[in-house]
């Protein structure tokens, strides 16, 4: 395959020789050392690996929150690794839903506003955004928290709201970093049920997890070790 030629098969996401180095005062940390992965449309892929293997960094770079040091990232057949901050913002608005490891909800907006904001930003009407928000909060058992400020929620509740926010605008690709990280088993079940449902509706999901039960819901599992892909295998 030649360097920058588009992939022959249409895929949701494709990375080639992705490298990410962090530099701080003479220290150089290679978080990703040449990662090649692919995600088909509507595919659910789990990324596993020990701490420090570069899982979160991979999501950051794919989501445009960190710039790759070298390598290529292709989203929906379009090369995105060299986009400006502005164009990345528009990409995220339309095509990417992101769930952070720490929920990162907007502190001055209620839960409802937090969930609706990405939808409004992507172009739906306020009424549609509200309907979508009610639907998602209901699925996650958070309807009674709609008017509450994020600072009053528990870590698990914040995480679920973050997931709802990430799905509110029907993104092409959901990037989720440990979405069940601090949930109890009951809430984990609810989250998995929602993920399975959206996956069934055609949502492409790239999810980082430690939990094998969560990974077992995926179509494929990629193992990262020391910034490189160690394993890439699918379930049945």
């Amino acid at each position: 395959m030649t360097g920058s030629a588009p992939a022959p098969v249409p895929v949701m996401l494709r990375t080639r020789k992705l490298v990410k180095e962090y530099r701080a005062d003479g220290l150089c940390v290679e978080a990703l050392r040449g990662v090649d992965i692919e995600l088909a449309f509507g595919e659910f892929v789990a990324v596993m690996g020990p701490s420090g293997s570069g899982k979160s960094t991979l999501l950051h770079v794919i989501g445009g929150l960190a710039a790759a040091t070298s390598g290529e990232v292709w989203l929906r057949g379009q090369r995105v690794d060299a986009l400006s901050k502005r164009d990345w913002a528009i990409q995220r608005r339309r095509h990417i839903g992101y769930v952070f490891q720490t929920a990162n909800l907007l502190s001055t907006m209620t839960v409802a506003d937090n969930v609706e904001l990405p939808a409004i930003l992507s172009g739906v009407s306020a009424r549609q955004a509200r309907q979508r928000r009610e639907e998602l909060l209901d699925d996650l058992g958070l309807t009674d928290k709609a008017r509450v400020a994020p600072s009053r929620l528990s870590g698990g509740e914040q995480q679920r709201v973050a997931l709802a926010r990430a799905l509110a605008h029907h993104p092409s690709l959901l990037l989720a970093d440990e979405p069940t990280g601090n949930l109890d088993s009951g809430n984990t079940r609810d989250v998995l049920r929602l993920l399975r449902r959206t996956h069934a509706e055609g949502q492409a999901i790239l999810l980082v997890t430690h939990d094998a039960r969560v990974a077992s819901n995926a179509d494929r599992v990629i193992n990262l070790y020391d910034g490189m892909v160690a394993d890439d295998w699918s379930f049945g």
Partner: protein
Amino acid sequence: MPTRSWANAPHATLRWVRADLLARRVQAILTVAVVAGVVAALLLAAMLLEGTTNPWQGLFARTHGADVMLRFGYGTDLAKLDALPGVTKVGTPSTIASATLEQGATESPVELRAMRPTEPAMSAPLVTAGRWLRAGDSPADASGAVLEASFAAAEHVGVGMRVKVVGVDGNTATITVVGLAYTSDQDFYPQATPGLIWVLPATLQQVEKIPSETEEVVGLRVADPSANAIGQVVQEVYNAYHTTTEASPVEQVATSQQVDASMASNDRLLGLLLGLFGIIALIAALYAIANVTASRVLVQRRDIAMLGALGFTPGQVVWALLVEQTALGVAASALGLAVAWTAIRTPAFIGPPDGVPVALAPLPAPWMALAAAVTVATVAVATVVPAWRAGRVSPVAAVAFTPPRGRLSRLARIGLLVRLPVPLVLGARDAFTRRLPAALTIVGVAIPMAMITIAMTCWTTLDGFTSDPGRIDLAAALTVYPGSESIHAEQAQLARDPQIAADYPGAEFDTLLPGATATFTARAMGTSTSPYPFDVAQGAMFDSYNEAVAGQGLLDLLHYHVGDWVEVTVDGVPMIFDIVGRTLDPANNGDVLDFGLDALAFNGAADQPQFYSLVLKPGIDPSAARQQLLRMSGDRLQVQQAANPADGLGVLKVVIIIAIAALAIIGLANLLTATAVGIGDHLHEAGVLAAIGLTPRQVTATLVVNTTILTAFGAAVGTAAGLAVAPLLVNAQGQASGLGWGIAMMPSVGTIAAMLAITLTVATAAALLLARRSARAPEPLAPPRRPLATPRSSA
């Protein structure tokens, strides 16, 4: 997927702005209040400056003044005035007569003006003491009269006193002063002479029995108060009364513009000092607004970064913040303008009761609009920079704050080694690691402190004028002018008076400058062997008949320096003097040349003393001494009290108090926002610090020390800068006004120590309060990492 995203970006922006304003409404209200306060203070200061240096505007508005004041001979037909084009209103005519006011040995020419007890619609005098005329103030009943206030102050006449008025033909009337009032129809006494007294018509007739010796004065209001239009109206008046057969009955015409120009303050020092404060206030105000705005943005850095992650472009993030802050800025401007507008409507005058009345002069609408626009612009600019930077930061920044070398710095290690308290060492690190926020905090405290120091220096200097008048050549509190007896008899009497420490004979001459471009005052004060106790700021005192000292103003006029020789013609006699010294003299704006009385004799001029300057013994009150002298001499002496420029500058003390209060509020606001930002940024460490073994007290102490160290440094730097700059600024003002370089007096060490102590206490208290409150709120700690539930299965 609907693709109206471009149209919906503003929708999302507004959503966020609205939510943010509501969520932080207390801070928003505080921000608006601070900015509004700054705007209002600036506008009030400008209005005060305008009203002080030009009191005419305020007086004109309050007295419903006349645009044109006409004086006609007795019996003129005034009906013609109604028909003149451009005239909207004709006032009630008043009869006037000339007379003389007698007070002991003093005689002053006055003008009696007959007015009715009812307040006239135009040119209604503004009563500032006592009351206006009443029907009962007729000659049969004590002959009440109202004196023009500046005249009364100059003549030391107060409400309740009885004075004698003598007409041109010798008819006398004893009048009782029932009130003092100001008018906008003429300049203050003694710029405008003669002094003005308002009486009932009956009283005037008692003094001036011949009607044809009286005149009529009447005021006009015009439709267009511009200079051209008024000029045309004046021309119309002349035309209407023009006759070819006899002299025009129009005796005199005065316009409001002439009075305005005349009333404008001649006191250059006051104008300059107020101007200095204006600039200081402007800088401090703009800085405060910028700081409050920028801090508001900095506090929500994390949320701003998240907006980017959600899909707001950096440009949209800046837009969102601009919209939010500009809304606050507009609200604040409106509020500030409203406060200033209300203040104009209050009738209060500020300033010493004897001095020139100071009112807040309204600023023209374009200036108010400019103030509002500048405020909003400052808010916008102060928003854009931090917003742009915050918008470009990713919410997953790899490293938040990097210590300079990645390990415990040398200083910190030494600090811990010598067992400095741990909170102290930890708290101090911000100054090294977060350099930009630390620098901003320091500057935010330093600038107000520097300006407060400058303000305190001005205050101390003014106090110095009053407490040590010798510094500005006012060692002699009283001046005695000879009465009817020969001057030698007076001197013998004065030498015996126990209140008097020394007396110096003197004479004063208005002299033309060489080149005849202006005049200055040449004064013989004391003799060469026993000169008047001038305080020489530069050079030496004169001790020979051809030496003299000069004021800064004169040196500037002549472009001379100490050591130059000057040739002047004093009282018709040419004289040459060696300028051996420079004094700080407020008289005549520093345009003075002082030498010994014997110099006059040496040069062949008359050397009779015109007056004696009396230096009182310490502790003796000048006005009491004056009364005593008058009594003892049987009212044969004229005794005047020396006018201290500090009296006229009394309004400046009011301005200084306002300025210090405003600067203190600004400094406090800067402090609070900087503290909030600092504490917010460090809150996540509180848990970590507790975990490594710091007690809750020590954790709070770390947060507090953080701010207090920066504040202390900022206060010290600001005060030092202020102390360095203040004498230069104040002396420069003094030099420019003609008073001279060297007037500045620094605040005492105690005052400065108190200032610093107060600042530090307030800063620590504020930090303590905020730290306690933040520590109590639930901490949004990161969710703890679960250990691996199942081991990783590897291929």
